């Protein structure tokens, strides 16, 4: 029973973060849920043998490779797959500090600092993939105000990351 409790804690801790990670890459919730679920299934099946300190990186790399597989099946451009691959590379000197999980934790903390309208703009631009002008019209503001909101969110995040490093 102790193992189950331990596993349950891991499930609770990373589930939403892994979901956000996958969603950012592939954009369909249904597929994300299947992928995150099968990552946990692998952990659960091999839990006795697993080194607890590697569970987190296992979960992320499992989700990553499944998402890449999924993308390769879709009609996306190969350059996009390459881009996704490079997202969690490139921090070789200090991978522990800037790994994906850490970024997501910071971003989740940041959510409460963002105005609802800023969040709405972020979603419209980068999930629903609307043009800035369209978003501006919908929200009854100027295109430059839309951009200003986006830059502001990005800068807040940059500051936060810089502070933690």
């Amino acid at each position: 029973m102790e193992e189950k409790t331990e596993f349950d804690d891991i499930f609770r801790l990373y589930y939403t973060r892994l979901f956000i990670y996958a969603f950012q890459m592939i954009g369909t919730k249904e597929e994300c849920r299947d992928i995150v679920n099968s990552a946990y299934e692998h952990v659960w099946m091999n839990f006795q043998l697993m080194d607890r300190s590697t569970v987190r990186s296992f979960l992320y790399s499992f989700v990553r490779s499944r998402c890449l597989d999924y993308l390769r099946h879709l009609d996306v451009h190969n350059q996009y797959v390459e881009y996704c691959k490079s997202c969690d590379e490139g921090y070789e000197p200090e991978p522990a500090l800037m790994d994906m999980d850490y970024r997501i934790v910071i971003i989740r903390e940041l959510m409460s600092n963002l105005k609802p309208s800023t969040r709405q703009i972020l979603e419209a631009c980068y999930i629903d993939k609307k043009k800035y002008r369209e978003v501006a019209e919908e929200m009854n503001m100027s295109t430059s105000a839309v951009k200003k909101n986006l830059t502001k969110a990005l800068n807040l995040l940059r500051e936060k990351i810089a502070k933690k490093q």
Partner: protein
Amino acid sequence: MDTKDRPVTDEELLDLLEGMSERDGELWQQVKEKGLTDDCLHLRLLAAASRIGQEEPDVEVLLAAFHAGQSRKRRLRLRRWGLSLVGVAAAVLLLFLWMLPGGNGAGTGKEPLLVFASDSAALRSPVLQTEKAPGVQASADDGTDRPAVWVAKGPHELDYHTPANLSAYAKDLPERHSLTVPRGQTFKLILSDGTEVYLNADSRLVYPSRFTGKERSVFLDGEAYFRVAKDAGHPFIVRTQTLQTRVLGTEFNVSGYEGSDTEVTLVEGSVEVSDADRQRTVRIKPGEQASLQTDGGFAVQKVDVSQYIHWREGYFYYDNVTLLDIMKELGRWYNVSVVFCNAEAMESRLHFVADRRQDLQHALTLLNRMNKFTITQKADGRVYVE
């Protein structure tokens, strides 16, 4: 991260990413070449975290569903190895198998067909699993020390709404409970908000001992009838493996046995039914039934709601329902296997009412009185339709 050193301004970055498409190879090449991978990732993560945060996944419910799925898979694996399992405190397995008769030529369409399989490891009485006490019998008090959060009102009723010990209740943290009802029985639960849940045979409900937070969320495997206590501020959500139903206060039936379509039938009020991701949603009115189609869409049809009211009151009630569906229900209730030797009979539609408290023989006698087919329980224990 110094802005002056950045070769690309934020203005340029945003212009580049405008309406970004995964199909645009040029764009992604530029993102990489110009060293914008991080910024682009961060914008996408911000958007994703915001969207997912709109409706945080209910991790507790997902966790319960995960373990339920795992134990079902484990049992399937064990069964394949021919091991029998005793005392498994979880929903039982339904097998809808095409049975081929030994020796006879296959594919003629005349072979006896097993439409419902009995389960020898089926539970005998309802089982309540809590985090502290896995697998206690959910029956009336037997003198053992029980948590104070619920009261047993009989062998088939639990009440969380009027706890026995109010001060202990207030101190107790909400726990995840799971109630499994065996074949041939039903169970009434009163949840902490006063919502009444009638669980049908062979079903399982996962719910918190006390609702907290914005939503009242439960997970169902099998079939249940809900009379939801009105509370407009806290939507009540019933999730199954495939769909979710959101309500504010109403009466409805959810049926999602494994191997059958999941159906939501509304008796009173108004509900919103969505697939598990809430990508597709449909609103139904009283007397309507929504079912999830294999293509992911919903079919809505008018139904006679009496059937869903009568099972709760201890009757099999069917109007214009196929013999196949009726026999599956009888198989589930009496835990017997059902074999059709007469495939035509499967599709005949009947009006049929029987008392569930009577034995199987009683129901079969009533069916045989229609003189359309012969249904008998043979020496091997299975029920044959000829």
